[in-house]
C-alpha cells in the first residue's frame, strides 16, 4: 500500500480542480479514462440507434422508412461510429484507467498529449454528425455518404459534401488514436515501477502494447488514403480515377492494409481483459502467459500481411490469392492458442460465475463461431460465393460483438467496483448478460442462413424469400438494443451507490498476476503511485 496515498509536497496541484475545468484541462489518467468511457457509451447509443433503423428497414421487404441513400448512409456511419467512436475509445479509456495503475506509474507518460487525444474525439463525432446532416442542411450538399465504411472510390469521389466531413472525421479519429497509442506505448516502455519487468505485466498491458504498435503502423496509411480521396474530390488529382491514370483498386489495398489489422486493434484489448477475468474467477493463474504474449505478437505481425483476403474478387493472380488465403488461415493458430489457453486456465479451477466471467465464457464460445466462419471465408473459392452477402455480416458481427464489445462489457463489470468504489448489482448484471447474449444470437445467427441463401449485404431491399430470417433478425436486434438501456441503468446505479467495494473486490483478484491495480483502494485516490512501488 505504500505510495498509494497522494503526496502533495512536490506536486503543484492538490486533488482535482472543480467544475468544467477539471475535465477540459484534465491531464489525469483516471479522469481522461472516465471521459473516454462516457464518450464511448454515448457513441454506443448513437451507433446503436442507426442499427435499430437498419433492422427496422429490413424487418420487411420493400423500402419503408427512408431513401436507399439514407439507408446506405446509416450502414456507413453505424460502422464508423461503432469502430472508431465506440470500441476504440472504450478500449483506450480502459487503457488510460488501468495501465498506469497496473504497472505502478503515477500517470500516463505524456499527460497533455492524453488530453489532446481525448478532446479530438468530440470534434470527430461532430464531423460525423455533420456528414449525415450535410445533404439536408447545405443547399448543394449532394448525395449522402452511401459508400459503406470502406469509402471505396469511385462512389466516394462522387458522393456529396457529407463525404468531406466523413474524411475529416476519419482524420481526427486517426490523429486521436495515433496520439493515444504513442502515449500508451511510451507509458508501457518507460513508466513501469521498479521490478515490474515486461514479462510481469498483466496480459491487458501486453495486449494494449501490441494494439498501440498496430495503430501506430496502420492509422497513418488510412489517413494517407483518405487524404488522396480528398485530393481526388477537390484538387483534380487522379489517384483513384482510371480515366486520369489512377487505380481504384489501390484505394482498396490501402484501406484494407489498415482495415484488417484494425480488426486486431479491436480484438486485442478484449483478449487482454479476458486474460485477467478468466484467472480471477477460475482462481488459478493464467495458463501459458508467455505463449499468450508470443501469440499476440504473432497475431499482430501476421495480421499486417493478409489484408487482401477482403478483396479476393478484384481479380488478383492465383499466386497472390493463394498467399493471402494461406496467411489468413494461419491466423487461426494464434487465435486458437489464446482460446485454448483460456480454457486450460479454467480447467480444474474453482469457478464462480459472476457477470464478467459469464461474458468471458460466452466470448470464448461465440468468438469461436466467428473463427469457424472466418476460415470458411478465407478459402478463396468459397469466398467467391459468400462475398458481400449477409454471411459476411454474420461473421464479422460474431467476431466484433463477442470478440471486442462483450470483452469491453466484461471489463466494465470487472472494473466498475474499482472505478466507482461500489459493487454493481450482480442480479441485474446477470439479467443483462443473458438478455444481450440471447438477443445477440437471435439477431445474427439467422444472417448466416440468409447469407448462404444469397441475400446481399448493404442493400435496403431484399427478395421476399429472405423475409422470415430478417423478421427474426430484426426482433432479436430490437431486444439487443433494448438490453442496453439496462446496461446504462446498471452503470449509473453503480456510480450513485451500492455496496462498498473493497480494494480487492473479487476473491481471485490477485491470483496469478503481479498487477498493482488491486493494491489501491476502491475507488483509487486521484493521484496514485506518486512514489513508485517496488514489485518483488
Amino acid at each position: 500500500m505504500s505510495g498509494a496515498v497522494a503526496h502533495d509536497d512536490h506536486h503543484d496541484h492538490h486533488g482535482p480542480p472543480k467544475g468544467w475545468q477539471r475535465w477540459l484541462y484534465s491531464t489525469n489518467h483516471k479522469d481522461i479514462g472516465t471521459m473516454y468511457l462516457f464518450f464511448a457509451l454515448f457513441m454506443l447509443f448513437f451507433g446503436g440507434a442507426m442499427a435499430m433503423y437498419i433492422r427496422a428497414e429490413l424487418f420487411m421487404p420493400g423500402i419503408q422508412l427512408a431513401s436507399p441513400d439514407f439507408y446506405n448512409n446509416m450502414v456507413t456511419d453505424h460502422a464508423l461510429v461503432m469502430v472508431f467512436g465506440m470500441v476504440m475509445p472504450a478500449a483506450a479509456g480502459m487503457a488510460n484507467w488501468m495501465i498506469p495503475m497496473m504497472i505502478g506509474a503515477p500517470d500516463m507518460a505524456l499527460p497533455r498529449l492524453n488530453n489532446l487525444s481525448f478532446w479530438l474525439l468530440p470534434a470527430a463525432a461532430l464531423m460525423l454528425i455533420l456528414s449525415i446532416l450535410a445533404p439536408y442542411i447545405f443547399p448543394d450538399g449532394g448525395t449522402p455518404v452511401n459508400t459503406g465504411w470502406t469509402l471505396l472510390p469511385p462512389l466516394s469521389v462522387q458522393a456529396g459534401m457529407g463525404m468531406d466531413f466523413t474524411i475529416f472525421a476519419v482524420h481526427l479519429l486517426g490523429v486521436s488514436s495515433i496520439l493515444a497509442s504513442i502515449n500508451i506505448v511510451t507509458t508501457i516502455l518507460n513508466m513501469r515501477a521498479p521490478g515490474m519487468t515486461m514479462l510481469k505485466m498483466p496480459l491487458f498491458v501486453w495486449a494494449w502494447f501490441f494494439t498501440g504498435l498496430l495503430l501506430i503502423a496502420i492509422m497513418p496509411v488510412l489517413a494517407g488514403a483518405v487524404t488522396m480521396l480528398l485530393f481526388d474530390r477537390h484538387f483534380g488529382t487522379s489517384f483513384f480515377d482510371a480515366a486520369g491514370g489512377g487505380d481504384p483498386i489501390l484505394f482498396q489495398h490501402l484501406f484494407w492494409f489498415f482495415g484488417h489489422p484494425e480488426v486486431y486493434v479491436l480484438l486485442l484489448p478484449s483478449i487482454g481483459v479476458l486474460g485477467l477475468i478468466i484467472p480471477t474467477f477460475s482462481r488459478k493463474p493464467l495458463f501459458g502467459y508467455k505463449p499468450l504474449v508470443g501469440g499476440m505478437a504473432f497475431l499482430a505481425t501476421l495480421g499486417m500481411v493478409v489484408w487482401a483476403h477482403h478483396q479476393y474478387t478484384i481479380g488478383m493472380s492465383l499466386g497472390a490469392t493463394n498467399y493471402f488465403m494461406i496467411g489468413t488461415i494461419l491466423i487461426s493458430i494464434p487465435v486458437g492458442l489464446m482460446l485454448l489457453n483460456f480454457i486450460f486456465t479454467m480447467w480444474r479451477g474453482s469457478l464462480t460465475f459472476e457477470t464478467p466471467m459469464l461474458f468471458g465464457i460466452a466470448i470464448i464460445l461465440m468468438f469461436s463461431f466467428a473463427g469457424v466462419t472466418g476460415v470458411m471465408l478465407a478459402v478463396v473459392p468459397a469466398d467467391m460465393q459468400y462475398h458481400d452477402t449477409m454471411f459476411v455480416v454474420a461473421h464479422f458481427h460474431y467476431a466484433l460483438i463477442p470478440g471486442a464489445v462483450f470483452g469491453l462489457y466484461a471489463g466494465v463489470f470487472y472494473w466498475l467496483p474499482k472505478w466507482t468504489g461500489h459493487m454493481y448489482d450482480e442480479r441485474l448484471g446477470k439479467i443483462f448478460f443473458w438478455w444481450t447474449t440471447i438477443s445477440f444470437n437471435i439477431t445474427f445467427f439467422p444472417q448466416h442462413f440468409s447469407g448462404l441463401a444469397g441475400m446481399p449485404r448493404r442493400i435496403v431491399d431484399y427478395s421476399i424469400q429472405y423475409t422470415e430470417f430478417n423478421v427474426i433478425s430484426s426482433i432479436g436486434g430490437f431486444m439487443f438494443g433494448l438490453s442496453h438501456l439496462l446496461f446504462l441503468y446498471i452503470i449509473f446505479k453503480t456510480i450513485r451507490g451500492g455496496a462498498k467495494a473493497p480494494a480487492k473486490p473479487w476473491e481471485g483478484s490477485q491470483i496469478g498476476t503481479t498487477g498493482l491495480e488491486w493494491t489501491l483502494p476502491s475507488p483509487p485516490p486521484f493521484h496514485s503511485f506518486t512514489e513508485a512501488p517496488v514489485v518483488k
Partner: protein
Amino acid sequence: MNDRAAQNRKVMIRLGMVVAGMFAFGFAMVPLYGLICEVGGINGVAGKAGGRVADTAAFGVDKNRLITVQFDSTVNANLPWEFRPQTRQIQVHPGELASVNYYVKNTTDRAITGQAVPGITPWQVTKDFKKLECFCFTQQTLQAGEGKEMAVRFAIDPAVAAEYQTVTLSYTFMNTEQVSKN
C-alpha cells in the same frame, strides 16, 4: 524525474517517426503499386491487360475454329459524345488479323479530350486478345461537332481455350478533362 521525461520524449519522437514513415508509405504505394503488380505479375488472373500492342507474328492461323467477336460501346455520363461500333459482330479464325471501325462524334460546341477504356468478356480471353492498333492506346481529342472513324486491329491467339466461342470487346469512353461528378 527529468531523466524519465527525457526518456519519454525520446520514445515519443521515435514512434512519431514511425507514424510519419507509414504516412509516407501510403503515398509511396501510388507509384510502387503499379510497378509491383507489373514486375511480380500479380495484377489479375487474366495476366497482362488487353491494352498493349501485340506481336502476332509469333503464331499462325487456326483454320479449324471460328470465334464470334461482338463489339459494344458505352459513353460515360460526363462525356457528351456519340460513340458506336460500325460493325456489331464478326467471325474470325484464331490467329487471323481483323480490323473494325468505331464511329465517335463530339456533339458539343467545344473541343473535348476523352479516353476509351477497353474491357473483354469473358475476362479469361483477355490475355489472348492481342490488339495491334487501337484508338484506346491514346487519348482522343475531338473538335466542336467533329465526328470520325477510329480503327481497332486485333488477332486472337490460337492458344485461347476452345470453350470460348464468343468474345465481347467493349469500350467505355471517359472524359479525361473532368473527374466524374454526379
